[in-house]
């Protein structure tokens, strides 16, 4: 009976932490100060099972699999025009207030439309030059979920 319990708990843990609630360590400073380098969190895969990512949501974007993911913030959704003027975010020509951006930013990015089934993601830390920051539009199918906290 004890062995059966151990097997069931192990099986549950394997599927839960392997596929539904994936633990990860944050490596890098692109989401600072919201998510500091070295922090630990979980990617909740069911977050967007019945809904779509909204503006200001923090999402995990996958590469070829779930071992390496990017943690970024959604700033625009499909069909919207996104641009940066002197560090300020504009969506469809209107300035968006971003309380989570704490460091000074002077980015300029010409207006572009977010493609169908895509979201536009950017990190919270925009203190580095724009060419050194990994951001842009990601296909919706690459959004694995969101951090648990």
């Amino acid at each position, binding site marked *: 009976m004890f062995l059966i319990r151990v097997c069931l708990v192990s099986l549950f843990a394997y599927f839960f932490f392997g596929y539904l609630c994936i633990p990860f360590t944050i*490596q*890098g400073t692109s989401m600072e100060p919201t998510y500091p380098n070295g922090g630990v969190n979980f990617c909740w895969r069911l977050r967007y099972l019945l809904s779509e990512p909204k503006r200001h949501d923090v999402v995990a*974007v996958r*590469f*070829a*699999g*779930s*071992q*390496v993911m*990017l943690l970024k913030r959604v700033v625009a959704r499909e069909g919207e025009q996104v641009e940066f003027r002197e560090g300020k975010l504009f969506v469809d020509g209107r300035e968006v207030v971003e309380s989570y951006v704490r460091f000074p930013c002077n980015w300029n*990015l010409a207006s*572009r439309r977010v*493609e169908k089934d895509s979201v536009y*993601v950017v990190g919270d830390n925009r203190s580095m030059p724009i060419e050194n920051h*990994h*951001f*842009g*539009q*990601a296909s919706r199918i*690459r959004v694995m979920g969101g951090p648990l906290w």
Partner: protein
Amino acid sequence: MVKGRYFFVGGLIVIIGVVLAVTVFPSEEKRVKKRFRLLSEWVSKRPEENPITMLQKMKDIGTLFLEPSELKAPNDSLSGSYTRQEISAYAGSARSHFSQLDLKLYDLNVAFPEKEVAQVTLTARLIGKFKTGEQVDEIHELDCLMKKVDKKWFFSQIEVIEVLKK
């Protein structure tokens, strides 16, 4: 008791046989993955690497590729077709700028769309330190096409997939 011993010995022989078969005759997927392990090993560089090892690795990297091999990268002047010599020379030149380099590969998914052709998608992470002291941490998704020639797998095409499009 004697019967139990026979079962145990029989079971042990079967397990050893299976382990030997898997080790001696690896599956095609394992053979493909081994080529990636070699690529990772040869691209990586330790701070104390001597010039002879450097030259050997440079030459070895070229042997993993078919002639010619194609590189496709979005918005990158590196896209094009390369011979083995060109790949070796480019790899050597790129490695020489680093004091330390580590190529890590994740999430290798191997598919065989045709006979003697393998398509592999993976995440590649390059962590390094330039001789000037500047740190590098690049992550890319790669889509690789491999072909089997004379019982060996060779890289035929490497495409860098654009995950975030600015």
